[in-house]
């Protein structure tokens, strides 16, 4: 039993201990503790240093609103979680926690010098202090600030855990498992509709966890909550998710939940996900998120040992832990009296209750008096004493007068309760300001959701339960279910939530030179907010950004209303006119792991592989990524580097033959009686006269006349075309075609089907191509006469049906064997066996690029960049001159597309044949001109060509076709390279080799 753990108080089992360490110190707690309750049980309140001033900080709350008690929790080197709220972290045996933002130790922290230099760190200091000299920002200020700023240290190793993700659908989602949420869920569940109930805490019960004076259905509130939760958990139509935070409310009742699966376990099963993200689509959402207690804003209100009154009740009534032995209370509302009474009953001395109100009345006040507790009404706490822990409070009449120092070792504060409207506001619901109570409440809703209980401003337990039962039934009826309303929940309570104030308490008005903290996590004081207003900030959005109030990871759960009240008081305007900052998701921080879920490693993005991928792997190919595809880049043999491999592959293809996996090419089957008519409209070329069995190279334009895609198209029948696209353009081209078909040409009877993955494509290119495939092909006459260049035939290969294209992207005699994909590897292997016998090789995308560049064939995306026309590329021949319409025909006639001075495709030969130009390098006419030089073109493709015995390059050059033979220059960082402008065709200029 540790020193502040009380016997016979609380709900934990004293025999079940859990060991843990804090900053290396070995401590003991109980199963069911949070890290915070276990620390307090050991008499430890000092748990961290504040963000800016490095002030000693303790534990303010007992929940997720905690701004101060942020610690690192370390399981091992890879599992070091920073900024864990000690109030939320459940204790497990072996837990290791460390304090943050201090050096060398928590008790003696060098950074606390910031506290003395506070005048230099006033609101907006970083906007002012680091303005000059400009150059210092990058090298001095920013790195320094980055080093000093931020809390906690991220682990350096990659995350070894895995995270799960799940979509879920329900009729009713209830967020919050307190009295309201449990009652609403019970009413909804009775109907048999699907209900999901989530709560961020380890168990259900909400405020019943600490409220000692509530009875529901004849039993203590907490006991009712446990029984109700157990009953709901046993129903098939109900899913209860504890340790699950509803962090975001999105469109159409999509609510994001994050479930912490293993954070509370001593030795988690490695198969368990660490967290699970639930994407819940709910027909109705019941928001029962309760309210958050506000602290009092007064001088030195941040010392360890000063905490919310409700937190002290949590620690006492649930965890059996006393927060001190001599406890002061500073309040402006009734609920803090409950804390005083509970502590008093547990034998803890209450030094005094300081109530800002002049004449509070009610049962709880009477009870406090009857208990003999000193009650100082109309008084305030002017300041506190103590360094690493509060040791006294200075109390004085709020109207002024002598102050009296009262020793305390804990001070409980309560300025009232702020309804948790975060989710309602995220749902785009409008907030309404309750002038009497000075709080924002749910107003007009934007989605199908109902707020109930404390988050709706409902204070009495009986009204809350009534509202909850009605909401559960209403939600069910809203989705067409039957709500029987058989449940009734009589209740009794001694609790009262009456009263409250917001803004600074007497003695801490913004003009006063005291540190009265509004936002603990970002170290924002009442004075800072005053300064922001004095410096001209009028909207709360500006005040917020200038002071950083509410911008920490707690998002101002305890501070926003105080900050707004202070600004509104100085401005003399009601709060709604100063504005309310936007509530944004997430409600509490969500890990990247939870958001990424399964989508890491192999599942980060699909990796697409062709049917022949395994062959390339077996051959030791090096792969490159082309979109999501893995493509064989080159096939190095023993001792070869990339250059040598590509040179060999290029040579072999032209001397014998090569095999290339072209399966990734996009393929679209265009079918229907109007197929040719549709092709006429989508491509620049004429198609109607293309004979069945013939192929044509097609160019597709966008409406603006620029080249979008290209590819070879084969006509399989009058009403059937086999269209190929670039690998990267496959999806885009299909969408483009489908878009025009549906919106511009709906009258055409034609349909489009993607067959990219239906066909494995084996390109066999080179003088021996026909000899290689001939022994395997049946039913097709492969002679040049019967099957000339640019033709397509259907037959079989190895008994497998094939669409055999005679076509070439290398300039050699070539075939592309299309076979159904499941046969791809088998057919490839058979062709490969023949190819080996003919001295052929397998080649990759790099060799494919070089060979096509030797022939001056363009690659869309390399020679084109979305601003290049067919004319620029010298492809006028591919535009049907007699055609009256195709997509882009009017674009092509734009004045700037027909003017002279456009960049045109040319070849470049370096004067020194060994120099390979850099792609993207700029071309100038005169290298001696002053900088900036006039750039007249750029290199689009550049390679070493083994077959030409020299380097070759393609370029887009202003009026390039009229500059043939001219000498131009490419200024590079280390030298200027001289080139000669040539035709883009470097090899077999007459193009005879394709015909064999």
């Amino acid at each position, binding site marked *: 039993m540790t020193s502040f753990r009380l016997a016979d108080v609380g709900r934990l089992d004293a025999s079940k201990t859990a060991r843990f360490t804090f900053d290396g110190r070995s401590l003991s707690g109980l199963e069911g503790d949070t890290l915070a309750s276990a620390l307090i049980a050991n008499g430890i309140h000092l748990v961290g240093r504040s963000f800016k001033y490095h002030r000693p900080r303790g534990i303010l709350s007992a929940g997720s609103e905690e701004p101060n008690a942020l610690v690192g929790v370390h399981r091992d080197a890879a599992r070091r979680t920073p900024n864990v709220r000690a109030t939320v972290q459940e204790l497990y045996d072996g837990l290791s926690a460390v304090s943050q933002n201090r050096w060398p130790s928590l008790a003696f922290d060098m950074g606390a010098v910031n506290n003395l230099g506070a005048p230099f760190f006033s609101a907006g200091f970083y906007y002012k202090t680091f303005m000059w000299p400009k150059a210092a920002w990058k090298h001095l200020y920013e790195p320094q600030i980055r080093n000093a700023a931020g809390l906690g240290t991220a682990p350096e190793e990659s995350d070894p855990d895995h995270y799960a993700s799940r*979509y879920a*659908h329900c009729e009713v989602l209830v967020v919050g498992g307190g009295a309201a949420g449990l009652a609403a869920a019970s009413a909804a569940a009775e109907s048999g509709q699907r209900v999901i109930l989530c709560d961020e805490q380890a168990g259900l019960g909400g405020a019943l966890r600490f409220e000692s004076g509530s009875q529901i259905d004849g039993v203590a509130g907490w006991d009712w909550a446990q029984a109700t939760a157990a009953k709901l958990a046993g129903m098939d139509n109900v899913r209860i998710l504890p340790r699950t935070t509803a962090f975001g409310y999105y469109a159409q009742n999509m609510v994001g939940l994050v479930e912490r699966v293993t954070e509370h376990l001593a030795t988690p099963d490695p198969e368990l996900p660490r967290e699970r993200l639930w994407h819940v689509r709910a027909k109705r959402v019941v928001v029962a998120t309760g309210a958050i207690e506000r602290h009092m804003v007064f001088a030195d209100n941040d010392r360890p040992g000063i905490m919310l009154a409700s937190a002290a009740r949590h620690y006492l009534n649930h965890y059996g832990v006393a927060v001190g032995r001599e406890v002061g209370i500073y309040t402006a509302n009734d609920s803090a009296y409950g804390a005083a009474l509970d502590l008093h009953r547990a034998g803890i001395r209450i030094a005094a209750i300081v109530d800002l109100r002049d004449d509070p009345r009610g049962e709880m006040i009477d009870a406090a008096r009857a208990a003999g507790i000193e009650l100082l009404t109309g008084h305030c706490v002017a300041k506190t004493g103590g360094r690493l822990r509060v040791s006294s409070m200075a109390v004085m009449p709020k109207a002024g007068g002598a102050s009296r120092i009262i020793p305390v070792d804990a001070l409980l504060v309560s300025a009232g309760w702020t309804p948790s409207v975060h989710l309602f506001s995220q749902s785009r619901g409008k907030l309404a300001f309750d002038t009497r109570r000075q709080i924002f409440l749910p107003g007009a809703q934007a989605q199908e959701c109902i707020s109930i209980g404390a988050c709706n401003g409902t204070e009495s337990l009986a009204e809350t339960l009534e509202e909850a039962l009605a909401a559960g039934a209403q939600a069910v009826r809203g989705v067409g279910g039957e709500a029987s309303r058989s449940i009734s929940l009589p209740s009794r309570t001694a609790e009262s939530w009456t009263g409250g104030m917001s803004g600074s308490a007497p003695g801490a008005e913004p003009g006063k030179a005291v540190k009265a903290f509004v936002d603990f996590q970002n170290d924002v004081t009442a004075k800072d907010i005053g300064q922001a207003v004095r410096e001209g900030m009028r909207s709360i959005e500006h005040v917020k950004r200038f002071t950083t109030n509410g911008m920490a990871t707690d998002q101002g759960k305890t501070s926003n209303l105080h900050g707004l009240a202070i600004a509104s008081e100085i401005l003399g305007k009601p709060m709604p006119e100063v504005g309310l900052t936007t509530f944004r998701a997430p409600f509490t921080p969500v890990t990247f792991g939870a958001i990424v879920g399964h989508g890491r490693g192999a*599942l980060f993005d699909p*990796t697409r592989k062709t049917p022949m991928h395994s062959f390339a792997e077996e051959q030791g190919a090096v792969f490159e990524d082309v979109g999501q595809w893995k493509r064989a880049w080159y096939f190095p043999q023993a001792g070869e580097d990339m250059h040598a491999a590509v040179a060999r592959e290029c040579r072999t293809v032209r001397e014998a033959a090569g095999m290339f996996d072209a399966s990734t090419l996009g393929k679209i089957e265009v079918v229907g009686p109007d197929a040719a008519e549709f092709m006429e409209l989508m491509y620049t070329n004429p198609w109607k006269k293309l004979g069945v069995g013939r192929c044509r190279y097609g160019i597709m334009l966008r409406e603006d006349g620029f080249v979008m895609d290209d590819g070879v198209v084969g006509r399989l029948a009058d009403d059937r075309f086999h269209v190929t696209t670039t690998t990267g353009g496959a999806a885009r081209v299909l969408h483009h075609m489908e878009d025009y078909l549906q919106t511009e040409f709906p009258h055409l009877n034609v*349909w489009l089907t993607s067959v990219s993955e*239906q066909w494995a494509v084996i390109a066999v290119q080179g003088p021996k191509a026909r000899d290689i495939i001939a022994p395997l092909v*049946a039913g097709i006459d492969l002679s040049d006469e019967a099957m000339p260049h640019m033709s397509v035939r259907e037959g079989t290969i190895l*008994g497998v049906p094939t669409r055999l294209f005679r076509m070439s992207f290398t300039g050699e005699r070539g075939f592309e064997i299309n076979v159904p994909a499941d046969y791809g590897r088998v057919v490839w292997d058979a062709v490969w066996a023949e190819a080996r016998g003919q001295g052929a090789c397998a080649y990759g995308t790099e060799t494919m690029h070089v060979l096509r560049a030797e022939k001056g064939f363009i690659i869309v995306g390399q020679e084109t960049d979305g601003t290049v026309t067919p004319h620029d590329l010298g492809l006028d021949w591919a535009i049907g001159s007699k055609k009256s319409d195709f997509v882009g025909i009017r674009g092509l006639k734009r004045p700037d597309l027909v003017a002279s001075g456009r960049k045109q495709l040319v070849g470049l030969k370096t004067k020194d044949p060994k120099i390979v130009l850099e792609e993207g390098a700029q071309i100038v006419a005169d290298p001696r001109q002053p900088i900036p030089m006039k750039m007249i073109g750029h290199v689009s493709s550049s390679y070493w060509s083994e077959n030409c015995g020299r380097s070759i390059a393609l370029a887009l050059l202003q009026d390039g076709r009229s500059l043939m033979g001219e000498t131009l220059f490419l200024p590079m960082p280390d030298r200027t390279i001289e080139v000669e402008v040539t035709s883009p065709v470097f090899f077999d200029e007459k193009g005879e080799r394709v015909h064999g």
Partner: protein
Amino acid sequence: MAEIATRMGPLDGRSLATNAVVIEAARPASRIALRAPSASLAALSLALGVDLPDRPKSAASRGTRHAFWLGPDEWLIIDEDRTDLNVACRGAEVLHSCVDVSHRNTAILVSGARVEDVLSAGCPQDLSLEAFPVGACSRTVLGKIEIVLYRTAEDDFRIEVWRSFSDYAFTLLTEAARDLSS
């Protein structure tokens, strides 16, 4: 000339059985993408021996032949016995487009008591029996890819997926199953 070669599917040899689900590659099948105006449906239904469904999220089956509604004029026809569906369609001399996609898709069969949960790791649709009854079919999303999902029985689904995305689909389902069996 050799015998017709054996089909090698992208998921050959892969399967997973846990106490929650069984995930396995389906047998090779023949498939066509069928497009047609409504006037052609009767003739095509007759030719294919299965009544082409005309409602969203529906399918029709006869024996091992299935017709999935994918759009107002679009169906995916599957024959698990690998009968040549192109030949069947040719018998209907009405306006339509029939394209062989037997090898474009591959299929994954997922079954077991937690089958809805395993699919819900990546599929945003409501897969409860009320919303997605036996025989329901939908082109939908699984994680980052597109699939066609078909419920063959209360605890059995068939996922049709393009072959190069099948590894992703299978791996995602495997990961999801891990979440259910632990």
